Structure formats: structure tokens, C-alpha cells
């Protein structure tokens, strides 16, 4: 090959990207404020088009008590002016037409926490930020605002205390259909000991012909033991046996907003196995075969099945910090340590903590048995360590040793 892969990668993969200056400054400000304001994870990049198209279907249905921030103030605090405007519009509309916004929001207390549901809003392009998932825009969203505080009056520690906030859909398994699978995300901050969380996920109004809920738990993920789902009846209830936090609020949505077709499509998308493909590594059969072969090699049988490549053998002593360094080695295109930069370097006690002289298998790798290479470290009686690369005996002749 004309170009060397390592040189090419080093040349092209040079760090060149820089954060936006605005983001840079914001981070510096936040770092200075750290310790005064608690965790505040909120910056997102402004959408290319900052114009916010308010959709008439946006709605808001719950109230906040005077003592808490309103959802619009929360949105403003996390830097989402677009969402703040939309929440404010709904708050204002609600004040004029119905009840005072400052009327008490619904609160529930469980497990030493008091949770107040401050409100929610749904619609397209409500946020000034665009949300993408799987590379696709997802701007038809629901935003839910809650305040979580401790009943004993101590401050919530957002770094150590975990909460899970999610809409749930009656009649659908809440373990499968919740904020996690609805492309959820959240922003939160702590102010005067109260944790404010603004959750966003795919618009749940399309499920308005189901009973809709908002759960708040003291867990990291959805836990099946915390709620009782009766899928036939289409209802979900708290498991009252749970001693921790498992609040459950009703989400009041006009059933005329249901869109069964969209709902079916979303469920199909969530159920699609391709959603999980990104995590899976497709390993060719011959590589699996090689790995299976390599896994059977032990210090006891390696000489029976493998050939040691003598020009890779190196012996070194640990330095004063306990590190052993071996220089890069190269047998041929297929067998080399070119990924190591300065050769391999590892702590002596990683493998030989008890200082008993012996050989250990360091690694085996290869996309086929023909390319399989096994590396070993051997602790010698004089405490020096010998490195060696090995290849399977029956294919060793195919690999021309330079």
C-alpha cells in the first residue's frame, strides 16, 4: 500500500474543531459559578433557524405554587428562550381564562421527597433548540416541568440523588414505552435546595386516547416494581408497597388530540430492532472463529499450538514507577504493534502483583485465524519481563517473517 494507515490517520485526525465562542464563554462562567448554583446542565446549540413556530395544539394543564419557579422561568433559566415564551404564553392564557397561575400545583410526597408537578406543554418547534435523535429532527415534543425537594428541608444533591421523570401511557407497558424510548432528555438545576427538572420527549398527545401519566421516581431508570400496569384496563397505578419515591400524576390531555396513526408508527419505531443496532458490533464469522480459537490458548498449551515470533521477543525491567516499556515491534503488515505509538507500556503489577514468575496471555486479536496474533508477558526469576508475539502454528508459514 502506498499510504501508511497510521500516518494518514494521525494527519487527518488532528484536532481542529473548536467550541462556539458563546458556548466557550458560557462554560467559563458556569465553572466560576460552580458550587454556588448546583448542577445546571442546559446548554444546547441554537437551531439554525431560531424562528419558533408556535403550534396551536400547545397546551398547559397544571399549576405551580407561588413558592416555585414557573415552567417559563425554568425554561428561561436553562437558556431556552423559545420554550420560555411558549410556556409563558400558556401561563398567561391560563391566568386570563381560568385559574390563577399561582394556585397550588399538585404535589405528592413519598419516600422523603415532595414532588410538585408544575406543568407541561406539547407541540411542534416549541423550543429554540432543535432536537435530533438517530440523525433525524424530532421537534414535535412534550415538555414537563417538576420541582423535587426533600421533606426534611435539606437541599437536593443533584450529583448524588437520581430521579427518573417520564410520561407513561395507560395500556402500554411502561417498561418499554417511557421517556427513554421516547427520545427523552432533560435539563435540571437546583435552586434554594429544590431540584427543578424539565423533561422533554416525543409528543405524547398522540396517545391522548389513552390514560396519560407522569411518573417521578428516585431511580435512574424506569423500574417495573414501582408501578402496577393493567394493560387490559389501560391504567397504571402506584405500587404502594414501595417505600421510596414513586409519584404518579395524571396528565390531562384533550382526547381529540389523539393521533392513532402516528401513535402506531411511533410504537413500531420503538419496537423496531434497528433502534438498537447502533450498539451492536457486527463481527464477521471468520473473526469469531479466530477469537474462539484464541480464547483456547493458555500459557500451558501455547507452545503446542503456536509459534513464537523470535524477532518480537523483548525483555525489560520495570522502572522506578513500576512501568515496563517495550519498543514497537513489526513482523509484517499483518503483525505489528504500530498502534502502540511508543510501543507497549504497562504497570508491572497489572499482571504480576504477586510477583510469581509465570507467563500470562496479554491479548489475542485478528479478523481471521490467518491474521491472529497472540501476545504474552512472562515474568522471569530476575523480575524482568519478556514480551513475545505468537501466531498459530499451522498458518505461521503463510506469514513471512521479515
Amino acid at each position, binding site marked *: *500500500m*502506498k*499510504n501508511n*494507515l*497510521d500516518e*494518514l*490517520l*494521525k*494527519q*487527518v*485526525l*488532528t*484536532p*481542529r*474543531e*473548536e*467550541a*462556539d465562542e458563546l458556548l466557550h464563554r458560557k*462554560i*467559563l462562567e*458556569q*465553572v466560576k459559578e*460552580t458550587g454556588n448554583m448546583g448542577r445546571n*446542565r442546559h*446548554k444546547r*446549540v441554537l437551531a439554525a433557524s431560531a424562528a419558533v413556530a408556535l403550534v396551536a395544539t400547545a397546551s398547559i394543564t397544571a399549576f405551580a405554587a407561588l413558592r416555585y419557579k414557573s415552567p417559563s422561568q425554568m425554561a428561561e433559566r436553562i437558556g431556552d428562550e423559545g420554550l420560555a415564551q411558549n410556556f409563558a404564553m400558556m401561563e398567561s392564557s391560563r391566568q386570563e381564562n381560568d385559574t390563577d397561575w399561582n394556585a397550588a400545583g399538585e404535589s405528592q410526597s413519598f419516600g422523603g421527597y415532595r414532588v410538585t408537578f408544575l406543568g407541561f406543554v406539547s407541540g411542534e418547534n416549541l423550543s429554540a*433548540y*432543535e432536537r*435530533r*435523535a*438517530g*440523525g433525524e429532527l424530532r421537534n414535535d415534543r412534550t415538555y414537563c416541568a417538576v420541582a423535587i425537594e426533600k421533606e426534611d428541608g435539606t437541599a437536593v444533591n443533584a450529583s448524588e440523588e437520581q430521579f427518573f421523570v417520564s410520561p407513561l401511557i395507560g395500556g402500554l407497558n411502561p417498561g418499554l414505552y417511557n*421517556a*427513554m424510548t421516547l*427520545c427523552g*432528555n432533560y435539563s435540571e438545576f437546583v435552586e434554594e435546595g429544590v431540584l427543578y427538572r424539565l423533561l422533554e420527549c416525543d409528543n405524547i398527545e398522540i396517545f391522548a386516547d389513552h390514560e396519560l401519566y407522569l411518573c417521578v421516581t428516585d431511580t*435512574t*431508570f424506569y423500574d417495573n416494581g414501582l408501578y402496577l400496569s393493567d394493560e387490559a384496563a389501560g391504567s397504571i397505578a402506584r405500587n404502594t408497597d414501595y417505600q421510596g419515591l414513586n409519584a404518579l400524576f395524571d396528565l390531562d390531555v384533550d382526547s381529540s388530540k389523539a393521533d392513532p396513526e402516528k401513535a402506531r408508527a411511533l410504537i413500531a419505531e420503538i419496537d423496531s430492532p434497528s*433502534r*438498537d*443496532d*447502533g450498539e*451492536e*458490533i457486527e463481527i464477521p464469522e471468520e473473526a469469531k472463529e479466530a477469537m474462539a480459537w484464541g480464547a483456547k490458548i493458555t500459557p500451558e498449551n501455547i507452545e503446542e499450538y503456536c509459534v513464537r515470533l523470535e524477532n518480537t521477543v523483548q525483555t525489560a525491567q520495570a522502572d522506578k514507577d513500576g512501568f515496563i516499556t517495550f519498543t514497537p515491534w513489526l513482523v509484517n503488515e499483518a503483525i505489528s*504493534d*504500530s*498502534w*502502540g*505509538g511508543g510501543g*507497549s*507500556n*504497562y*504497570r508491572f503489577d*497489572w499482571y504480576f502483583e504477586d510477583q510469581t514468575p509465570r507467563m500470562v496471555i*496479554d*491479548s489475542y*486479536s*485478528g479478523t481471521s485465524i490467518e*491474521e491472529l496474533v497472540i*501476545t504474552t508477558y512472562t515474568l522471569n526469576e530476575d523480575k524482568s519481563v519478556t514480551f513475545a508475539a505468537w501466531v498459530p502454528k499451522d498458518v505461521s508459514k503463510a506469514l513471512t517473517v521479515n
Partner: protein
Amino acid sequence: MTKQELTECIDLYGRDIYSFCRHLAGNVQEADELYQDTWLLAAQRLECIDASGNVKSYCLSAAVKIWNNRKRKFAWRRRIAGTQDFLDEEGREYLPDDRPAPEELLLRKERDRLVWQAVDGLPDKFRTVTLLHYMEELNVSQIAQVLHISQGTVKSRLYHARQLLKKKLEVVLNEE
């Protein structure tokens, strides 16, 4: 470490960390969040960071942890990163000091695009070690420390990454 020292590190390592976040996350929006969260996490753990130690490695490690946690938490599943975005962004062009002829520049740009496409298309595990090694210039030992995995695993992942890249970049590698 003090806040002042951390802000100096943000200036010093900002580009390195941001570039890493950018290609770990795959798009600007996620990268910005990841980049911010990484520095804020560092700010919250100032007492754990030795200013005379390897702050960059600490931050790279934090970025990987945050990213993995975020992926698990929200089950965001990304497809292979869209390469068109990369082409449209400024600063991606390869511009050496002795500027080459326009046609050569075009070839290099295309080469760079293909390389980034191949790297961004690697499975997460392989992409992470590739970025840490080739972009951040960490050796196997340092990568092992950053990712909290054994050196053998690092080597194995780098090996597989190189094999995959070699196949994907066969045309580029065979160019004169």
C-alpha cells in the same frame, strides 16, 4: 486544582476535548452538550483533579463516561454520522502551510472526507480508541487508564479498528 487552573485548562485543551467530543457524539448539538458537561463535571470535582497531573486525560475519561451514560440513559441510537455535515463545516479542510495547488487541495479534501467517514462510521468502541490514539495522541497505556480497561483490550480494539479502516480506506491507501 483551583477554578482558575481549570479555566486555563479549558483554554489550553479546549480544542482537543471538543474535537474528541465532536466525533464521539457525531453531531454538533450532542457534542456541545457533552463538551459542556465534561467541563462542568471537572468543575464539580476540582478537589479530585491534580493540576500537575494529566488533566486532559481526566477530561477525556469524563467525556467517555458521560457519553456512555447518556447513551444508556436516553437510548439514543445514532446512525452512522452524516458526512455531509462535516463537509459543510469550516475548519475541516486540510490546509498545510505550503498551500498546494487547487486540484491537490480538492484531492486532499476528498481524502479527508473519506477518512472521517470511515472513522465516524466505526462502532463506538473502536471509534473511541481510534480518536484517543490518533487524535489525542494517547498511547495504549494512557488509553487503558482513560477508559478503565486493560491494555490488552485497548490493543485488541485498536487492532480491529485498524483492520476495519484498512478495508474501508483501501482506495485511499493505494493512491499514489
